[in-house]
């Protein structure tokens, strides 16, 4: 395999693994957060405004880790710096 093939294979495989494993943790965490928020909403419906706002902010915080993984895999697929480097080298020769 030449360099380009290796880079292409590694990028695609790693992009898939990144999104797959990177969303696993945030998914579990968001499930726990929503479940806890629901039970506290059921116990104290009066505090719904505060609970909902805190839930949204917390969900955004948790979700951002998944978003980082997604951005990294998108960069690997669509704007891969190593791929561009090899292409530039190949055309420069």
């Amino acid at each position, binding site marked *: 395999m030449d360099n380009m093939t290796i880079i292409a294979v590694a990028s695609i495989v790693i992009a898939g693994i990144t999104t797959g494993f990177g969303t696993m943790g945030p998914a579990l965490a968001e499930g726990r957060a929503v479940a806890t928020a629901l039970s506290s909403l059921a116990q104290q419906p009066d505090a719904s405004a505060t609970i909902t*706002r805190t839930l949204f902010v917390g969900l*955004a915080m948790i979700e951002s880790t998944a*978003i980082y993984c997604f*951005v990294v895999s998108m960069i690997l697929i*669509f704007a891969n710096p190593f791929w561009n480097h090899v292409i530039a080298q190949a055309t420069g020769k």
Partner: protein
Amino acid sequence: MRLSPDELIFWQYGFLKLNATIVFTWGLMLVLTVGSKLITRRLSISLKRSRWQNLLEIVVTGIEQQIEEVGLSQPRKYLGFLGTLFLFVAAASLCTVVPGYEPPTGSLSTTAALALCVFVAVPLFGIEEQGVGNYLKSYVKPTFIMLPFNIISELSRTLALAVRLFGNMMSGAMIIGILLTIMPFIFPIIMTALGLLTGMVQAYIFSILAAVYIAAATRVRKPKPEPEAKP
């Protein structure tokens, strides 16, 4: 496939580029400012008022109430900054129903600029409320060891704000783009509707997080009450 609207260039002269991000940002600015100017030209204080004035009043009082609930006791002072952030991000994602439009918040440049505005505004509001000395002292609380961590948290939350908004907007556009090649009918419309919802949630989260940061910076610490002697 384009990763961001930065790569769609309308006009280029030397290194001056006019890409889709700038054009759509200007368009949004024009719509927002001219729209509010037109609406507020004839304000009525009687019971009979136009629909547009009602709309604006609902938006402004809603934002004001949300800011107050976060813990800022004078929402009017922060309404200009936080309200602008919310309205810009919300309008940028709501306009995706217009064909040919791409949200400028799907570009890392726009979101980084917005996050930098928050990064600059938080210390400014904090200094205005507490004074320079007291604000700088808040970095070495509770002990001096926490100084580097406080500074790192300040930087990392700016990065998080920028990348969160960028990732959400970009993923929406990307998913629709991918689905269009697989399944061109009906289903992309559902994903567009979902994108509108996530856009509104992200706008809410962006402005609420900025409000929370400002509230944390402007909070004047009350002196501890003396513990009452136990009988």
